[in-house]
């Protein structure tokens, strides 16, 4: 048993949540006992978390290649393989996923409406997310990628806020638009790949294998598509697909709506993990497979990154809804990743992935915080609060910590990644980087202003008697807070994991320059 799990660690992590769905529906009487369902879901999300720890301990960061490989032929006609493995980039995201999923699961206990359905969708989502980060076959990757769409649609559409249907379909259409472009690009890459062999040694005319697409192919010779050079248009198609997920200006408008309408745990997942998939996809697919086109597109990526950062921050200032504000701040913060990844420096790429990680910790905390207040006040309008620090001191302190972490206060996690992003981007994009740093000022402004309007000043008597933070909420908030503080002073656990692979990746890109 243990041997089987260890040999198929990634698969077990990926598909355990599916087993959970079966359990939820198979165990009789769960419909009437939501607590049983919650318990099952917690256990089932807890297992990947524990296995994630095993994965972390078993991972040798010094190796830039793949580890925990599971590789077999899936659909022979199209040379599709079931190929799961982790390297330095993906393991950090897998660990983030299992952690945030567990926390989101705890945060989901407040859901009262059709609990079984909620957790079934939630667990399906987790399978998709872990799968995306583990898959190294493009087809498999795409299947997992799309697999997340459906549960997300329902989670927003059924358990969301007043405009849930609009938000859900908007999210769905946006991401589907992105992913169909990706589908075409994927097929084009497949048909332009060189003959190779499958894992069992049989020859294959083409391949979906990321590693082989990268190592054995150079798409500069492929014929143009719609009059545009092959690598460039494929890059663009993939990039648009991924950048919708990030989300990158001007494809970002689904995010505020989705966040505002989504229930808290789903916002947590959305901000913590789903947004990371865009950046991860760019690193995993665009960077490795199309290095030349990546170099070609780098200035544009950087410019979009800077627009995201500054524009997102500006728009934050104008928000009245706390969740919308956090959503836009996510847009701003993901801009750092874009800017940093486009520089192709060690520090930049490392900053990019670390920023993903840190944002993946900080923004869930922010959304949990927004959820706490929404549960009590049933609205999130910043202006309608005031002086909450008096009635909810612990909550205010946690919010302060999260805000400070998000605005990049040194000593907390966000700072290191932002500093690395700036450090990495600066030698390549000097003026842009300096300009983008304006975002740092604006970020401070909107967070502090929010802090002031919500927590400081005279107590709004309406909220004088607020329920203190509950233990369940503490279980979700404190782990994140602790991680934020620890990573601020000791980011090595993450850096150690990601750096060797990222340096190798950047090296291959630089070789293409």
């Amino acid at each position, binding site marked *: 048993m243990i041997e089987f799990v260890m040999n198929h660690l990634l698969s077990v992590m990926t598909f355990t949540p599916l087993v959970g769905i079966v359990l939820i529906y198979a165990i009789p009487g769960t419909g009437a006992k939501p607590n049983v369902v919650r318990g099952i879901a917690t256990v089932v999300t807890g297992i990947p978390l524990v296995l994630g720890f095993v994965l972390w301990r078993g991972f040798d960061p010094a190796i830039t290649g793949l580890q925990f490989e599971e590789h077999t032929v899936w659909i022979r006609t199209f040379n599709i393989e079931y190929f799961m493995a982790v390297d330095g980039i993906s393991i950090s995201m897998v660990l983030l996923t299992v952690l945030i999923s567990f926390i989101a699961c705890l945060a989901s206990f407040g859901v009262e409406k059709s609990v079984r359905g909620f957790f079934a969708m939630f667990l399906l989502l987790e399978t998709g997310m872990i799968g995306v980060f583990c898959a190294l076959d493009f087809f498999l990757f795409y299947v997992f990628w799309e697999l997340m769409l459906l549960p997300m649609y329902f989670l927003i559409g059924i358990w969301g806020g007043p405009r849930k249907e609009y938000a859900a379909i908007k999210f769905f259409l946006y991401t589907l638009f992105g992913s169909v472009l990706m589908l075409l690009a994927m097929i084009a890459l497949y048909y332009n790949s060189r003959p190779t062999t499958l894992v069992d040694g049989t020859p294959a005319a083409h391949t979906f294998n990321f590693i082989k697409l990268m190592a054995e192919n150079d798409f500069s010779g492929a014929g143009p598509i719609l009059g545009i050079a092959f690598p460039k248009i494929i890059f663009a198609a993939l990039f648009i697909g991924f950048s919708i997920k990030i989300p990158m200006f001007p494809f970002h408008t689904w995010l505020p709506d989705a966040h505002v309408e989504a229930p808290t745990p789903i916002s947590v997942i959305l901000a913590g993990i789903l947004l990371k998939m865009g950046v991860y996809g760019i690193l995993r697919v665009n960077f490795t497979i199309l290095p030349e086109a990546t170099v070609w597109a780098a200035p544009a990526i950087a410019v979009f990154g800077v627009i995201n950062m500054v524009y997102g921050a*500006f*728009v934050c200032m*104008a*928000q009245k809804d706390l969740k919308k504000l956090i959503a836009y701040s996510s847009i701003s913060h993901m801009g750092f990743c874009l800017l940093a990844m486009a520089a192709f420096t060690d520090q930049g790429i490392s900053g990019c992935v670390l920023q993903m990680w840190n944002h993946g910790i900080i923004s869930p905390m922010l959304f949990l915080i927004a959820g706490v207040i929404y549960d009590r006040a049933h609205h999130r309008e910043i202006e309608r609060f005031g002086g909450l620090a008096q009635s909810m001191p612990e909550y205010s302190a946690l919010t302060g910590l999260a805000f400070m972490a998000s605005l990049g206060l040194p000593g907390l996690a966000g*700072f290191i990644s932002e500093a690395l992003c700036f450090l990495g981007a600066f030698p390549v994009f000097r003026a842009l980087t300096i300009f983008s*740093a304006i975002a740092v000022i604006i970020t401070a402004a909107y967070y502090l202003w929010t*802090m002031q309007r919500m927590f400081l*000043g005279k107590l709004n008597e309406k909220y004088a008697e607020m329920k203190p933070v509950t233990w369940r909420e503490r279980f979700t908030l404190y782990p994140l807070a602790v991680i934020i503080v620890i990573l601020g002073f*000791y980011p090595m656990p993450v850096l150690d994991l990601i750096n060797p692979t990222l340096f190798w990746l950047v090296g291959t890109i630089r070789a293409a320059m």
Partner: protein
Amino acid sequence: MNEPLTVNYVWLIPFLPLCGAFVNGTVGWWLQKRFGRRPNGAIANAAVWGAFLISVQLFLTLRGLPPEQRALVNHLYSWIPVGQLDVALSFTVDPLSAVMILVVTGVGGLIHLYSIGYMAHDKSVWRYFAYLNLFTFAMLVLVLADNLLLMFVGWEGVGLCSYLLIGFWYQDVEKAKAGMKAFIVNRVGDFAFLAGMLLILWGAAGYWDDAGRYTMTGGTLSVDFRWLASATTYLQGKEVLGVSLITLACILFFIGATGKSAQLPLYVWLPDAMAGPTPVSALIHAATMVTAGVYMVARLNFLFALSPAALTVVSGVGAATALFAATIGFAQRDIKKVLAYSTVSQLGFMFIGVGVGAFTAGIFHLMTHAFFKACLFLCAGSVIHAMSGEQDALKMGGLAKKMPFTFWTFLVSTLAIAGIPGLAGFFSKDEILWKAFDTANPVVAWWPYLVWGMGATAALGTAFYMFRLVYLTFAGECRADEETKHHIHESPWTMTLPLVALASLAAVAGWLGPPGVFNLPNTFEHWLEPVFGGAARHITSRESGHGAEWGLMGLSVALAVAGILAARAVYAKNGAEAARRLSGRFPLIHQFVFNKYYVDEIYAALVVRPFMGLTRVLGWIDAHIVDGIVNLVGKVTAVFAMIDGWIDLYIVDGMVNLTAWIVIAVGRKAKTVQTGRLQDYLYVMAGGAVLMLVVSYMVERVFGGGR
């Protein structure tokens, strides 16, 4: 360069206050509820005084070493090792930081002690001491940091604590806003700091070619100050965007410093910062945090010394700030506001010092200022405490008798700040003015005269407004109401003891660095020589000679005395009446100065409002245009679908009719196609077949067979 010695316990210095902050922050509320306020203060004080003892130990260790080896490093671990970049979490103690840690923990300790009494009635003392300890931690990180990035941690950390402490009484929205203002204005400075840091680090690690492509030359970028100092030769002569890289970086760093140290044009937050508890003003907004900018420039002396242009900017801004803030001090009524502008002004002096390359003098003034200004603030706190929170000097008066300790310590410190010979302020300020006069400026020849002139005028002003304050507060009759008057009392020993200690220091510390003409050992300069010795080589004296030094010294003493006398003449008797009379006589000028030249209003109009407007515009654009475009696409599709029952099919229908007319010569006014009417279907089909034929021909003609 010698490898610095390793000491493995430096980290304890910041760690102890951190522990104090942690304990008070997590269980402090419980302690306070369970045992009263005592444990909170005790923990905080223990932490700081512990740090002080270790600092003293380190100081002694350092003194025991030969001067060129006076640098101790405590490398904890690699903090951000990414590629060639290897930023360490590492602390360094050299003569400069030794001075700073002694000041921070010493003065800080006294203020912690004072706080016990001052905050004795506050309902969340635990929070206060947690913040205060946290501040001490951050400040110590700032001064002990071995590299720019770690320094930035402390740099922003103190900013955070300042924010928290200014808004300590957050229930008052104005106080909360003051904290926010401080943080955001500081962030503007931090932005420049960050930019400077990026520029200097990458400039030192490689070069940009003409195309802007970067090549890295160095091996490991440890980015510590020793590495940076050793890279200066490499940096010299490099240009970025047509400007000398060092100058650009130094100016950016200095902009950072103007934020933290409240210089023009970013000083606006400091007067507002007086909203915090008075010991906080003493510690953060007088003695330590606001001097961080000076410390940073001094720390980067090796860079600034190489850029006369940057130094000119620094000294110019310093002088301008010194003078500007002093004038505002004339008209303020709030005792803390006066001290705040005085602080801004004195910080200007420090920048004059470091700006003319007299880093020692700048740091010297930093130290003496820490003593006397902390003392002044604490006295002010004592007064406010006694006056039940009243801060308007016009409503005070006659306190000397009732609060002897406070009065005498306040007087000593005021004399010190005014520059009366023998007291600390005299030595440090005079040193700065002398260096300002004597140091040659290779960029603008007459600069020394200008800076000196502004500095001297500011000194005159300082003497005047400080004594104005003394007279208004302590002399004459008490103008408070009976209720308040009844409560006036001297403060408890925890508050007076620090006053006495600080006043004593303010009195005697000056003798550590007597002027050159005194022919006494200049211990202070000698102590800092290992740090600033290298930079000093780039600074040239104008060799004005002893005579000039004596002369200028005499002149500045005369100015100080003149200021004091002038204040005495106006305010000694019935100061409040005099103040009102003055403002009545020059209403416009008074209004103008009293309202701080309307700088805040100008900022509001020129920066804040446009900024907020822009955010609203962008918010609108995002909600309506960016999102609108997408929705439009969606709507167009939907509308297209909706009307495809008629419009779209009208077109098809029209074509059907057209082809029908051509081919069969029969036109019929058919309406819609998916009407359910069979005839229309047939039309479409027949028309379609014909259309296909036509298209076939066209395709064949145009595309040559469509292959």
